[in-house]
């Protein structure tokens, strides 16, 4: 495929709001994870909560008010993203700019609150509960389209933790086919009890902080995040999406195929599409959730495709696992790495698990990068790999 230029991008997570906060924290090693309270959570775990965003939406956006759309709104306001989209809208027209947003749970936290406020007699949900504009999976994509005054094709992709990697693939297809001229892609997922207690039911939540690839890792720390990128073939930026790969495990709903066969297929598809050899990839941002099964399977896949020398790390030690937003967050990390010339270390990894043979970075390295691969995998055996680079 022809590289698709990324005009601008933004990311907000527990690490902070915007690109600069992330570039800083990723270089210094300051995690956004904390042991803290959230809602009525009673589980002993670390959380990646975004600070200072949780204010009600008002005016024309009031009907869309819920934690997830509040986070979308806060994330859209960083890094001059609104202005960049406005310029793009003026250039192409509102109907020629698409909106593709990944989420796993959208505004389900609003439904949790509504269930607590059921009428004790009738069992009815409270009148303030607007399912369409909050809980529904499409809500966040419709909200973003409305907020950005875009009227092109709009959809939500929801493939669990690969959701907001796959938006890059969908948007690239739509632009290549002429369905739209440019696209806003993004991912937004916010903390809720559904995912906390759900992952806890699967015994995947760690009481310790998330330690990807560590020999004593115990599971994930859940985080929340929102991020967006503007894909525009006419942009002046040198950053670009070089290729994407999508594949299925065909193995199990909530465990990865142990040999990483789906991951191998998605990574090879991304490289093949970009006509880039494995040795031309300078750094891999891992899915790296910090569960025993994920990190082992992903390492096997990496070793199969790249061998053991390619530097790689998970950045979930900074952000936690931001689920449906993880693809976008780690796309942004990959782009920051290329822009600033560094490879973040595997934060919180003390002793590398001997079963993991991939080239896990225990120290941050500072050097120019040509191409970076980002992996995102999800329940249902959903795999997506994105290859980013700089056009010269």
């Amino acid at each position, binding site marked *: 495929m022809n590289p698709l230029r990324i005009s601008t991008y933004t990311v907000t997570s527990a690490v902070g709001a915007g690109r600069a906060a992330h570039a800083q924290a990723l270089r210094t090693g300051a995690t956004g994870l904390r042991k803290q309270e959230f809602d009525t959570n009673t589980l002993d775990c670390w959380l990646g909560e975004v600070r200072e965003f949780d204010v009600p939406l008002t005016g024309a956006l009031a009907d869309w008010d819920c934690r997830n759309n509040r986070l979308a709104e806060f994330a859209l306001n960083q890094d001059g993203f609104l202005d960049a989209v406005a310029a793009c809208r003026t250039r192409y027209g509102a109907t020629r700019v698409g909106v593709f947003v990944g989420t796993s749970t959208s505004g389900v936290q609003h439904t949790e609150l509504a269930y607590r406020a059921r009428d004790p007699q009738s*069992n009815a949900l409270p009148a303030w509960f607007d399912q369409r504009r909050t809980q529904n999976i499409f809500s966040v994509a419709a909200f973003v389209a409305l907020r950005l005054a875009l009227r092109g094709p709009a959809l939500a*992709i*929801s493939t669990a933790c690969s959701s907001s990697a796959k938006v890059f693939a*969908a948007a690239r297809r739509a632009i290549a*086919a002429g369905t739209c001229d440019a696209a806003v892609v993004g991912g937004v997922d916010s903390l809720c009890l*559904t995912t906390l207690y759900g992952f806890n039911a699967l015994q995947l939540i760690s009481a310790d902080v998330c330690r990807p690839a560590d020999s004593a890792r115990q599971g994930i720390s859940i985080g929340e995040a929102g991020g967006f990128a503007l894909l525009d073939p006419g942009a002046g930026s040198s950053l670009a999406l070089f290729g994407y790969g999508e594949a*299925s495990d*065909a193995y199990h709903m909530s465990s990865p195929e142990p040999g990483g066969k789906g991951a191998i297929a998605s990574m090879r*598809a991304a490289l093949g599409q970009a006509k880039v050899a494995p040795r031309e990839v300078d750094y891999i941002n891992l899915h790296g959730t910090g569960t025993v099964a994920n990190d082992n399977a992903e390492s096997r896949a990496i070793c199969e495709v790249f061998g053991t020398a390619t530097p790689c790390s998970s950045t979930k030690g900074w952000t936690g696992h931001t689920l449906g937003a993880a693809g976008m967050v780690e796309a942004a990390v990959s782009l920051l790495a290329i822009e600033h010339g560094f490879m973040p270390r595997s934060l919180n990894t003390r002793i590398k698990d001997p079963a993991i043979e991939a080239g896990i970075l225990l120290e941050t390295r500072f050097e120019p990068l040509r191409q970076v691969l980002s992996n995102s995998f999800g*329940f249902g055996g959903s795999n997506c790999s994105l290859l980013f680079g700089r056009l010269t």
Partner: protein
Amino acid sequence: MTAVYVETVGLAAPGLPSWREGSATLRGEHPFVHAVLPLHTPLLLPVNERRRATPAIRLAFQAAEDSMNATALSAASLATVFASSDADLAIIHRICLALTATPRFISPTDFHNSVHNAAAGYWSIAAGTRAASTTISAYDGSFAAGLLEACLQVQVDGCDALLVAFDLPAPEPLKPTRPIAFPAAVALVLTRQPTAQSLAALSCATTAAAETPLADTALEQVRLGNPASRALPLLQRLALRRFEGVVLPMAAGANLSVELSAP
């Protein structure tokens, strides 16, 4: 862009229990009679997954299997696009209810089935395919958004694709907050090249035009009763081999114009 070919159709809706029976009704060969859709047993699934398959997954499989029954193409050769507004609101209900209790206990099976792409995951296991798969939502425009995404996969990525759209009613107390009148699912197998049995060539474009209704008032109620059955105007043209355009609801300001021509 190049055309996409409709190989087969799968259907599972009240009174339209399969493409064979439903297409005859859509052609007007006999009147539409509303009848409750029986719960489907997905025979393609391994025993463990069949046991865990929810009504939502069974519904998606019913239309998907119906579309695969009429083609020589192997399920393993197809990329998939699953399109659903809400996937499984019964699970959302059970989880949100469990979260109001003490202690909070969520069934692990419920949680892994709660992901929007659960049906896609089960399908890849059933079909034994590592092909690309995506799952989308666009509220009442979910069928059209899924059709557009599936066509783009065929045209841009050069694969043959299976599209499956499905939704089913919410339990109380969610039901009045998300009106879905009955379960319905629609599947299309789409190919790059025409085959001996292609029903039509299809091309999609966004449009500001209004969506195409159905003339029959009973069928129009079915169309409006579920996001998946918003596909019925397209399915009626395919049933009649009437090569004309329809407009399907997709997103605010961007409906989907679907042009049909002889394959």
